[in-house]
């Protein structure tokens, strides 16, 4: 259970950890692994040193890449791609499409994304709806079709041109002829031929699966130029490549390193990059889905939920895309709140643009993201001490824990009669429990002054647990304030490694494997050796030679 950082699952963690006081003896106290150490299979016993892992020899000339499965476009990618393809003013709704399955709070894991009859219904219904709307809108139709529907060869031109954008490659003559023949034979009338083509293309596996296959079906393969264009566009914009990018690829202008770098710069400079990565920050930090606190909190109203999300959206956006040092988001003294949220936090009113310099005396001063209510409050159900400690290590240090089944099996047997404080104390003394709890509970205790909604409550007594606030992974663990915790965290190299690993996941739809270690290390180095610029991190991931490779599973 400890390996799942999604907001809801995080709420389950405390149970397990709290109950771990009842662990039997003679068992490993816990298993821990971290994606910060690519290649780890997560089955090692006991707390591992985070951020480490065996160092690979990355000086070898041959780049490598971990195995991957064919990716189905995610619901978000589908939505953004439709907006571009059909030149819609806004992204279309996804009402009829099943939501993507989530894992570890991320919606991007290839392995859990499927295609079912219900998906196909949704895709078909959406294609029918959008096709009908397109044909009824003369202006947009002219732009998307590029010709009048009744003009000679208009259908063939459309199939050729639109098909290239939808399938992210030029269609073969056979594909074009076969689709045209069907449309002419089976569509109801001339206009329906275009709708027919749209239905086929927007439901086709050539559209739904990202066939970035390279030159060999098995083993290691080099991507073609158009496949690289596609992969770059999805990685940075979360959508299909533009006609211009495909043109470059087909013209041989997306092969040399500087050509790729130029294309990457253009992608990064477009607002679509920023908008796609808003999803990354929500999934990484775990605030995409917030729920009201389960117990009463003074001053709470549900209308605060969007305000809380907006605060973290704004701060991550600013530090990722505003030319700033991204890690400063962990310690910044500035935030972006509306008046309602400022009041809830007990802060002075923000400026007209929402920006606010936090007074030095305030508990939130210099705590950056760590005291955002969206992050503290997402964990609204359960034992906050264990949850928050585990969440912080999992999110920023990529340290996962898993209670061994044999220990989990005994949970609950010895609990009766223990108070909450006794449980926390007990689990930090018992051999089989403290290996894990002693690295998470001191963090959680340090944040225990914040209630379930993320509001600081000066009446909460954090000394009753008898555990001193500390970040046990840090060289000098003890801290007296959240600002100090933030500062210690900010200085840990594991944070950059972890962020890189999470960005790798968002880009690739899978966690880094052993073969990706050099890629991740290089990207992390490019990030931390310079100015911790978030775009640099993405540059490192997508400009690495391994990005142009594919290894089938």
């Amino acid at each position: 259970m400890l390996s799942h950082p999604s907001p809801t699952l995080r709420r389950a963690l405390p149970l397990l950890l709290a109950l771990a006081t009842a662990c039997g003896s003679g068992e490993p106290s816990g298993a821990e692994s971290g994606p910060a150490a690519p290649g780890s299979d997560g089955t090692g016993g006991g707390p591992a040193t985070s951020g480490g892992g065996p160092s690979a020899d990355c000086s070898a000339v041959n780049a490598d890449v971990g195995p991957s499965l064919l990716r189905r476009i995610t619901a978000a990618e589908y939505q953004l791609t439709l907006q571009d393809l059909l030149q819609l003013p806004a992204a279309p709704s996804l009402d009829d499409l099943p939501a993507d399955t989530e894992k570890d709070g991320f919606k991007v894991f290839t392995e859990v994304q499927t295609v079912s009859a219900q998906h196909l219904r949704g895709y078909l219904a959406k294609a029918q709806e959008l096709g009908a709307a397109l044909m009824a809108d003369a202006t947009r139709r002219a732009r998307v079709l590029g010709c009048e529907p009744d003009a000679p060869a208009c259908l063939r031109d459309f199939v050729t041109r639109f098909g290239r954008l939808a399938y992210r490659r030029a269609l073969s003559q056979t594909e074009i002829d076969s689709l045209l023949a069907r449309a002419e034979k089976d569509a109801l009338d001339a206009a329906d031929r275009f709708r027919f083509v749209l239905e086929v293309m927007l439901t086709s596996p050539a559209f739904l699966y990202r066939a970035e296959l390279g030159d060999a079906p098995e083993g290691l393969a080099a991507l073609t130029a158009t496949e690289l264009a596609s992969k770059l566009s999805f990685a940075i914009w979360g959508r299909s490549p533009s006609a211009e990018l495909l043109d470059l690829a087909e013209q041989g202008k997306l092969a040399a390193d500087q050509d790729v770098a130029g294309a990457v710069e253009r992608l990064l400079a477009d607002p679509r990059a920023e908008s796609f990565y808003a999803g990354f920050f929500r999934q990484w930090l775990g605030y995409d889905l917030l729920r009201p606190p389960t117990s009463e909190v003074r001053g709470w109203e549900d209308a605060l939920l969007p305000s809380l999300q907006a605060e973290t959206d704004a701060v991550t956006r600013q530090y990722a895309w505003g030319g700033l040092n991204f890690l400063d988001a962990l310690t910044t003294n500035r935030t972006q709140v509306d008046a309602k949220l400022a009041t809830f936090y007990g802060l002075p009113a923000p400026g007209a643009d929402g920006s606010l310099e936090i007074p030095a005396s305030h508990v939130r001063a210099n705590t950056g993201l760590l005291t955002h209510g969206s992050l503290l409050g997402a964990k609204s159900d359960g034992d906050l001490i264990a949850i928050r400690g585990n969440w912080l290590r999992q999110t920023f240090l990529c340290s996962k824990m898993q209670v061994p089944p044999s220990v989990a099996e005994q949970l609950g047997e010895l609990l009766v009669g223990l108070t909450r404080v006794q449980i926390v104390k007990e689990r930090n003394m018992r051999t089989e429990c403290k290996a894990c709890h002693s690295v998470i509970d001191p963090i959680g205790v340090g944040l225990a002054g914040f209630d379930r909604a993320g509001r600081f409550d000066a009446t909460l007594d954090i000394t009753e647990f008898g555990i001193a606030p500390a970040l046990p992974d840090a060289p000098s663990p003890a801290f007296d304030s959240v600002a100090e915790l933030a500062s210690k965290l900010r200085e840990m190299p594991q944070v950059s490694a972890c962020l890189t690993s999470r960005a790798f996941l968002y880009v690739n739809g899978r966690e880094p494997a052993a073969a990706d270690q050099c890629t991740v290390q290089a990207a992390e180095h490019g990030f931390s050796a310079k100015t911790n610029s978030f775009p640099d991190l993405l540059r490192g991931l997508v400009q690495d030679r391994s990005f142009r490779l594919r290894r089938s599973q």
Partner: protein
Amino acid sequence: MAIHIPRRTLLRGAGACLALPLLEAMRPQRALAQSENVQRFIAFFYPNGTDPRKWNPVAGALTASNLPECLQDLNGFAAEGIWPATPALFQDVTAVTGIDHSGVCVDIHMPSMALSAHKGVANNYTPPEPTLDQYLADQLQGTTPYRNLALAATDEKDIGQGNISFRKGGQVETVNRSPKQLFDTLFGKAMPSAMPDAEQAKRVKRNQSVLDAVKEDHARLVARLGKADQQRVAQYLEAINELEKQLTAPTGGSSCTTPAAPTSGGNWHSKSKQFIDLLVLAMACDLTRVVTLQYSNSWGVDYQDYTIGSGKESLGKWSDHFISHKLDDTDRATDLDGLDRTEAQRIADARVVATSRFKVRRFAYLLDRLKSVTTPTGTLLDESLVMYCSENGDGDSHARKNMPILLAGHAGGFKTGRSVAATNQNTGALHASILTRFGFETPSYGSPAGKPVADI
């Protein structure tokens, strides 16, 4: 509430709307063979276990007077909120006590493992083999359009929390989380009623051609793929084939009526009720024979819409999860903290009985609806095996032993009105028994493996 429309009208309507929306192709009407041995399976999942001491009946016949506290509403109950009064149903239910799920589900609060008899993989939350419903789906589908339906009243999309049905290879089943969407799928949106047959035929042909075209694209793609990717995109072809069947399979059912479209929104309770009503209609129309319904994930559901218990025993705003933890967990109803220990324990126990009774009443509602639908050979309940299940046994301790299992209905000649002691027999044994009921030769099943429980 249900608008009764002659079956022919329903089917004609469904057949007449090929252009928009989607592919509601003409489904030829099938006269349901009177002799056809129709069998159905429904799994009803409600999280957070129970208090086994107050749930498990002693082995032997169930009677109105020997029902344990948690099951007493199987003797009938009054209406509450959106739920109608329901008569006694204990004679249609057999309790199976003492099932040990801990070898299969090595983690706490794992709805994804609730219908699995095989130990989880990938962080313990993915069934490596098809879940029970999936195992049965191929066998029971017959000529019905929908191989199975997976319904969940929770918006939770996490793989471990928001899913209970998995296909082979750990492929998570697509879950329908919206009653309105399910209604649209099963019964169609507003449809043009009068369309000449020739026009209909053209539309059927057109839409079939769209599907044929994407199948050609699929074949072209497969030709370029390695083995692992070929296996992955096999699910696309499977999906197309299932969709075709949905759109063309004949439907029948002597009690088929179409309901009013449900409203969207609502909480777990109202969504679950809409799902129950729709799944019963889907069964009545013989659109499917296998359904799973997840009432909630582990955390969310509460009883704020209901007045249950009074004074200190009132459930108030506390979530089912918190109530299940009684006194000693950090996830507990803290309003009992200051009380005398004995009194606090009494109240915490009473609250778990109250939530367990609520859960059983919702299960009973499903059974009663199934029983109300007559079929050529009896009622839907006679054709069905309906299983109540949870992710934990004792909600307080998270133990996956002593699972709250109820089996209802009479599929395969299942005998009800009993309590069967299956003490410390594992989930594999339970599933082996159920599979045997459905005609599978299953001397042993699951991992860890179990042999069929005697008397099931």
